[in-house]
């Protein structure tokens, strides 16, 4: 808020402007402006396409597939313009005097404010989380369909193309619309608070990056409705196959662009916020590990995400403009896609994992009532993963036919990543050691995460070793591995984070009994579902197939039944969240007796987080140190000096 606006003064009065009436409601930003803006932008997209085709003499002038591709760019822009994410910038660009920030779009006064463009990072965080949980449920439902089809060999409910669409959309939604943005949502809520900042550095950009997200999600879900069905090439969408697929493929290409743009903007915002808006005294070595985790993640996002944007552009150009990036008959190179794609998508694994490390560190330290073990090494291992993460992409391509000399170096770097990851696991264990552990739901999920992630990491070592990888790549073993890492890893930490900060976000406590029930159902269901996949994978069950050899029938039936149980456990979670949000007992400001800054304000936090920027005086994890404090709020400067003195001696 304070650092973006350059040319206008800050004013203190910020009463909301009077609500528009009559026909003005149609031109004011909001849902009434959305429909006609979409129509206008649809017209612009179609108009440009038709004009260009007419000028160039390409026939037919009106071609559905081309129009659709262009509309996937312009219609979302129409939506964004309608809902009002661009209003300020349009006023600015046309040279109109920009309104002094009146904060009318800041903070939520009623539930309706969650459906408007809002610049408050706390509102945006909740918007993110609710949206991503919606897509989590949708993608989970698709997984249930997948397991239903796989319950028996042969074809049951779907044809091949539909089945391929089901798992492709499942994976894409889970990755691009759930895991990545759910972490962004949690961090959006928590990071400015932890830093002692009143908001993110660029609140309007923050709002825009949220509103891009539902666009991307509905685009991917909507692909089921187009002729030829949903995109069916997996979330990896390898060229040249993706170039020759039905129209639904474009919905993936464009959906990834929107989701990617959203995550780049958020990451940029986090980086600037973390670098320029830390409270006084909050040196880098006093930042909570969650902030460290989001700092490294954001660096990964900013650097790597453009590569997936590139790869999807190439596929789309090959389709629409008949270019030849991947067509060897015309000088293209098919493996280029995989190199470019994995140069993003391997770091993406860490984009989906590092914020989880941060959440686990917070939860484990607070719930064990002990300082985090080896704080600096924990932060440095994040940076090590960041650096190594960029040098391992080709381990996804050991059997792809790439240059053989790339194999051994990539294997070495891949295996080396186990070292910083191992450091983190051992440090969490050492943090728990001799603690006074409170096994609340977030702690259960955090401990569940550590144990499951070790399995995922160890199967990762198998996959990292080339000779073994050659055997099991593209089998159910890989499916098991990825789910141990992303479900047992990312999803468990997301749940831990949601339970941990639920009292802070809503001001109410969730139901502990239901939370524990949810954990145990998830934990057991998850292991019953995914552990057997290791076995059948090694025995020869490939992945991404609707039909399989009869000898795997028993295990698959078992897995399907377990997966339905796993799916059902989500109902407990939903019920708990919705019920507790409305009727839960008031939580108080600091139910976990945590030291980090977000717990030192009321629940939910005041609209501008702090009355006065706090003064940080020590490490965020000084549990058990007598008299230690992380920060001093509301400006008792004398106390600050005293504490700094204590710390120095």
């Amino acid at each position: 808020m304070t650092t973006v606006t350059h040319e206008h003064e800050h004013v203190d009065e910020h009463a909301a402007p009077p609500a528009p009436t009559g026909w003005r409601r149609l031109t004011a930003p909001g849902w009434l402006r959305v429909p006609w803006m979409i129509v206008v932008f649809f017209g612009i997209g179609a108009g440009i396409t038709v004009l260009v085709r007419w000028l160039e003499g390409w026939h037919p002038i009106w071609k559905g597939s081309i129009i659709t591709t262009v509309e996937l760019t312009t219609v979302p822009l129409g939506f964004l313009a309608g809902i009002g994410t661009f209003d300020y910038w349009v006023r600015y660009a046309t040279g109109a005097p920009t309104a002094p920030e009146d904060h009318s779009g800041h903070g939520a006064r009623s539930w309706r404010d969650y459906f408007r463009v809002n610049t408050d990072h706390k509102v945006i965080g909740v918007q993110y989380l609710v949206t991503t949980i919606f897509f989590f449920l949708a993608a989970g439902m698709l997984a249930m369909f997948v397991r239903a089809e796989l319950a028996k060999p042969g074809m049951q409910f779907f044809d091949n193309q539909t089945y391929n669409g089901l798992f492709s959309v499942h994976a894409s939604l889970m990755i691009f619309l759930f895991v990545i943005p759910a972490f962004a949502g949690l961090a959006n809520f928590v990071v400015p608070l932890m830093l002692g900042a009143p908001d993110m550095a660029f609140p309007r950009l923050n709002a825009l990056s949220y509103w891009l997200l539902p666009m991307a999600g509905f685009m991917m879900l909507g692909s089921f409705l187009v002729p030829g069905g949903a995109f069916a090439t997996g979330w990896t969408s390898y060229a040249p196959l993706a170039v020759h697929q039905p129209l639904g493929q474009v919905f993936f290409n464009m959906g990834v662009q929107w989701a990617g743009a959203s995550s780049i903007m958020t990451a940029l915002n986090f980086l600037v916020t973390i670098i320029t808006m830390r409270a006084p005294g909050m040196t880098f070595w006093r930042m909570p590990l969650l902030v460290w985790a989001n700092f490294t993640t954001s660096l990964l996002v900013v650097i790597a995400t453009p590569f997936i944007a590139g790869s999807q552009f190439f596929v789309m150009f090959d389709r629409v403009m008949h270019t030849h990036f991947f067509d060897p008959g015309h000088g293209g190179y098919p493996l280029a896609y995989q190199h470019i794609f994995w140069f993003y998508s391997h770091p993406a694994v860490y984009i989906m994992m590092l914020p989880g490390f941060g959440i686990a560190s917070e939860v484990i330290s607070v719930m064990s009532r002990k300082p985090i073990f080896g704080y600096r090494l924990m932060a440095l291992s994040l940076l090590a993963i960041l650096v190594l993460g960029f040098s391992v992409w080709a381990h996804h391509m050991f059997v792809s036919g790439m240059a053989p000399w790339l194999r051994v170096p990539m294997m070495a770097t891949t295996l080396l990543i186990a070292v910083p990851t191992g450091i983190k696991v051992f440090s969490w264990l050492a943090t728990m050691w001799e603690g006074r552990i409170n096994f609340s739901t977030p702690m259960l999920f955090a401990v569940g995460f550590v144990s499951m992630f070790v399995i995922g990491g160890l199967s990762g070592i198998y996959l990292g070793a080339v000779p073994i990888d050659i055997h099991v790549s593209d089998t159910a073993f890989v499916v098991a591995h990825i789910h141990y890492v992303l479900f047992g890893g990312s999803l468990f930490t997301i749940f831990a984070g949601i339970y941990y900060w639920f009292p802070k976000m809503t001001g109410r406590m969730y139901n502990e009994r239901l939370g524990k029930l949810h954990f145990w159902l998830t934990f057991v269901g998850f292991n019953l579902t995914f552990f057997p996949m290791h076995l059948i994978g090694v025995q020869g069950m490939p992945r991404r197939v609707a039909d399989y050899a009869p000898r795997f029938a028993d295990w698959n039936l078992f897995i399907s039944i377990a997966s339905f149980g796993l799916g059902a456990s989500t109902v407990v979670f939903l019920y708990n969240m919705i019920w507790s949000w409305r009727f839960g007992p008031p939580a108080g400001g600091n139910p976990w007796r945590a030291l980090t800054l977000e717990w030192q304000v009321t629940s939910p936090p005041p609209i501008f987080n702090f009355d006065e920027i706090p003064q940080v005086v020590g490490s965020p994890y000084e549990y058990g140190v007598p008299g230690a404090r992380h920060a001093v709020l509301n400006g008792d400067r004398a106390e600050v000096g005293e504490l700094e003195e204590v710390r120095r001696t």
Partner: protein
Amino acid sequence: MAVHVEAHGPPLAHRSSRVDASILGIFLFIASEVMLFGAFFTAYFFVRVAAGTPWPTPPFHLPVFVAGVNTMILVTSSFTMHWALQSIKRDNHAGLQAGLLLTFLMGLTFLLTQILEYSRIGFAPKDGAFATVFYCLTGLHGAHVAVGLMLLGAATIRAFRGHYSSEAHHGVEIPGIYWHFVDVMWIVVYSTVYIL
């Protein structure tokens, strides 16, 4: 959620870095843009080096000279941009306006020349991998010029409405940084695609 009626505005955030937030923001954005170009250059590498496509594939030719003149125009526009920024730092509004307008016009000339080049070059994106990479790299850069022009356009309009001063000129500085990036990127594109 509970209703909060706030009694005052936000507390001023602590400035924990000497770097200004929006300057840092634009540099990070440019880092991301460089990586996007990186993806396109990777495709260039695979087509030209790994697949060994002849460059340019006969019978096509690249208009090296015309593009060279165009390069000169773009490079010059970087200097006028710099002049505009230096002017406003000294509260010279006429210099700011002239500098921005000149930069904008030169950028526009560059873009139009590029479009003209496309229409006369004699091959289309579908004519083999060489044409593909040529159009996509220059096209990606062209799209960045277009975005840069939009930013410059906004800055120019505001400059003529008298919005900037020696104290407040981020609105000139940030499009300027972006414009220099677009310029440097063109030199890379020009030397790899046209000359090498």
